[in-house]
């Protein structure tokens, strides 16, 4: 916990923005204002805030379908991000990608991905680019507990290790892949799997922003030093279903309520920093409210944003025709 005030405020602001963003998406998706499928990361904000605080501009990230919070934490334009989820022409991907394929290459964000497991190899490739560039950048691959069983992830582990690449693998384990529990689908442990490839791994409490940040700093620094890849296994939980609309009957009764009460990373952050007298409840409340307002404005703007037209359908298939 060696963060200064500005950093602490920034961390909380990020988590608050993520939370409000997802709640706005939840409400508006449920109201039929957002098309498609959306996968919300509410509950998992400490991952986004903690990991991304350890990253730098020169780094690349390949992430999952559950990426809204990470886009915010990466500093992508909030309006463009929300617009994309609404499929507006002003979205960061012109509305062609949507929630599952939101990307911002200028920010090193290689995209959310609709294909589970694809992020591992993409980050290995970005790691090759980072090494070739020689500017000290690293690459990060996110995947879920479910994604941890995809063959491409292990192939990526192996390649990153034999090539000693500046790659960090992050298994963001929220306990479920859709309706299937990771206690069933994952043989062995994430850390032992990493060790199988000669790679260090660390398990982290994903409800604790500070634990995430500390662990992230370590693995990121290791990669940046040229000491090779590592795995971070973040144990967390989602506050909503797999996608909006999931009735979640596979979860225990009261599971989500209990999580919200006891394992809310925003609350736990607040307890820590207020307890240590680093920040006050009032300033946190102000930030929380500011972000609520900012997301509300963004939401309204997205709903009014211009839409793509016929001229857009057949552009961008190739860069040269």
């Amino acid at each position: 916990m060696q963060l200064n005030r500005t950093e602490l405020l920034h961390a909380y602001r990020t988590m608050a923005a993520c939370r409000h963003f997802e709640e706005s998406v939840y409400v508006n998706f449920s109201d039929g204002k957002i098309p498609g499928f959306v996968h919300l990361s509410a509950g998992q904000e400490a991952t986004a805030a903690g990991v991304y605080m350890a990253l730098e501009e020169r780094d690349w990230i390949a992430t999952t379908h559950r990426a809204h919070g990470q886009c915010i934490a990466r500093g992508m334009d909030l309006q463009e991000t929300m617009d994309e989820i609404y499929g507006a022409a002003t979205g960061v991907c012109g509305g062609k990608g949507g929630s599952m394929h939101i990307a911002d290459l200028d920010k090193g964000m290689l995209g959310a991905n609709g294909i589970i497991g694809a992020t591992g190899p993409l980050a290995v490739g970005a790691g090759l680019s980072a090494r070739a560039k020689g500017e000290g950048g690293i690459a990060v691959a996110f995947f879920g507990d479910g994604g941890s069983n995809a063959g491409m992830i292990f192939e990526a582990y192996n390649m990153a290790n034999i090539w000693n690449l500046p790659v960090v693998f992050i298994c963001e384990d929220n306990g479920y892949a859709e309706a299937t529990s990771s206690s069933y689908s994952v043989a062995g442990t994430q850390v032992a799997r990493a060790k199988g490839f000669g790679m260090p791994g660390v398990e982290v409490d994903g409800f604790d922003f500070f634990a995430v940040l500390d662990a992230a700093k370590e693995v990121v620094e290791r990669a940046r030093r040229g000491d090779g890849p590592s795995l971070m296994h973040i144990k967390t939980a989602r506050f909503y279903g797999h996608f909006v609309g999931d009735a979640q009957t596979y979860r225990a009764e009261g599971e989500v309520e209990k999580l919200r009460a006891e394992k809310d990373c925003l609350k736990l952050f607040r307890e820590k920093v207020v307890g240590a007298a680093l920040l006050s409840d009032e300033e946190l409340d102000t930030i929380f409210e500011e972000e609520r307002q900012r997301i509300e404005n963004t939401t309204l703007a997205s709903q009014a944003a211009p839409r793509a037209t016929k001229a857009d359908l057949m552009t961008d298939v190739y860069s040269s025709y």
Partner: protein
Amino acid sequence: MPKKTYRAAINEAMAGEMRRDSSVIVMGEDVSGGTGSPGEDDAWGGPLGVTKGLHTEFGPTRVLDTPISEGGFMGAAAGAAITGLRPIVDLMFVDFLGVCLDGIFNQAAKFRYMFGGKAETPLVVRTMYGAGLRAASQHSQTLYSIFTHVPGVKVVVPSNPYDAKGLMIQAIRDNDPVVFFEHKAMYDDEGEVPDEAYTIPFGEANVLSEGEDVTIVAIGKMVHLASAAADNLAKDGISCTVIDPRTLSPLDEETILEEVEATGRLVVVDESHPRCSVAADISSIVGEKAFKSLKAGVQKVTAPHCPVPFASELEDLYMPTVEDVEAAVRRTMA
């Protein structure tokens, strides 16, 4: 006859065959849903509920939730099929073939031939295809053309609940690998479906209506566009034959050729991208074998040569429409 949804028809086909034959098993991601979880088992029955109830009735050794390892479980299904089981594998979205095509096209599809006729591979791969749900580029593709290209695989694309049930039972009883394409926007479609088991043979097209002027061959969900277009055109005095091939491999060439010989004109409607598509395939077969009967070039109505966009407006533009079909029919009459 009782009315049932497309979803219920497929579910009923699987349940019935599982009752009849204990070697039929179901595997895939969340085909039960809830395994290992603290709440309900059989919580999902697949993301759109098509396998709902099977886990409850047949238990976890016959209805297996799999890890997210399509390459692994597709290969496992192929291995199970040549050793005595009859797996029905759920490949949630056909878009995921990029991580598991090997088990289908290099293993299951080739065993019989490579092993000199000594293998049987009774494998059914159920998979969702098609656009319209705003699921964007990686969850909306129509990829049956890829499977149709491959010898050793049978390819089935039911367009309505009745066919879905009969074709699914046939698929499960068939001793060859079958890829069974379910359009994700059709699960709630209703139709008359008998309670008892029945099969629809592969390679027998369904002729929905017979006309004099133009033949329309349409695949899967596109059959409904074709019928709607035929209805509209009838008002203008253009009478169309509408054919649903039901299976793309084997393909009922005879029926298509006969009907084209009668009308002299053909439109093929296919939700695929145009190049090397089933539309191109049928067009080329007719162009080769019924050339003399053709009064006009075969017209294709397909999706465009671009990925499926997310934005609603763009996806609507992407999808073939009834108007597209009508325009194509009129082009053949021009």
